[in-house]
C-alpha cells in the first residue's frame, strides 16, 4: 500500500513569492493534517481536515496561508506571499478514524527555503 505522498520534496523561492504544496493521503484515510516543522523542533499542527471539512485551523496564519481539500482526498497548502520565517518542512499526515486507535501516518515532507 502506498504511503502519504507529498510534492515537491524541496522548494526554494524568494520572499514575497507564492508557493504551493500538494499531499495525497493513504487511500481511504478521511482525516488529513498539515504540520509545519521548524529546524530543530517538533512538528506543529497547521490544519486538520475531516473529509473535505477543515475542523481545526486555529494555528493556520490565515493572512497568508490557505488550504483546500475539495474532494476529500488530496490537499493543497498555499502560502502567498512567502516570508523568510516560513522556511521549514511542511509535513502532511493522514489517518483512518477507528475509534481511539487512530494512528497518523506521515509523508516525507516538503522542505521550503525562502530567500
Amino acid at each position, binding site marked *: 500500500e502506498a*504511503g502519504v505522498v507529498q510534492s515537491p520534496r524541496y522548494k526554494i523561492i524568494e520572499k514575497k513569492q507564492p508557493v504551493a504544496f500538494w499531499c495525497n493521503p493513504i487511500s481511504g484515510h478521511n*482525516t488529513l*493534517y498539515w504540520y509545519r516543522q521548524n529546524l*530543530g*523542533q*517538533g*512538528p*506543529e*499542527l497547521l490544519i*486538520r481536515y475531516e473529509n473535505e471539512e477543515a475542523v*481545526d485551523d486555529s494555528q493556520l496564519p490565515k493572512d497568508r496561508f490557505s488550504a483546500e481539500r475539495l474532494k476529500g482526498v488530496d490537499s493543497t497548502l498555499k502560502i502567498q506571499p512567502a516570508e523568510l520565517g516560513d522556511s521549514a*518542512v511542511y*509535513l502532511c*499526515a493522514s*489517518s483512518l478514524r477507528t475509534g*481511539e486507535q*487512530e*494512528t*497518523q*501516518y*506521515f*509523508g*516525507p*515532507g516538503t*522542505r521550503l527555503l525562502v530567500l
Partner: protein
Amino acid sequence: AQTVTQSQPEMSVQEAETVTLSCTYDTSESDYYLFWYKQPPSRQMILVIRQEAYKQQNATENRFSVNFQKAAKSFSLKISDSQLGDAAMYFCAYRSAFGEYGNKLVFGAGTILRVKS
C-alpha cells in the same frame, strides 16, 4: 494547553547496547495517548510505539519499550540491542482523548540518537 518536553537534545549509544530517551509532559487530562515517533534523515516520520494512558502495562514493540509513569507524567523510550538503523531523531508526542483537541498531536522538540559502531 498540553506541553511535551524532551530534555535530551542528543544521545549516543554503542551498537548492541541499550539507551533510554526521556520525555515528560504536562496535562490536566486523565485520558490521553502518548507516542514515540522516529524521523530518520530522509524525514519520513514513523510511529515506533504508542501507549494508552488508561493502561497500566507498559507498551512493548520488539526492541522498543516504554516506561510510563502516569503520576510523574513521564514517558521514556528504551531501545535495546541498538542497531545502526536506529539512528534518527526521536519525537515524543501527546494526543488528548477528548473534544476539539482529540486528534491533535503535540510534539516535543526531539532527541537526536546517534549509534556508534
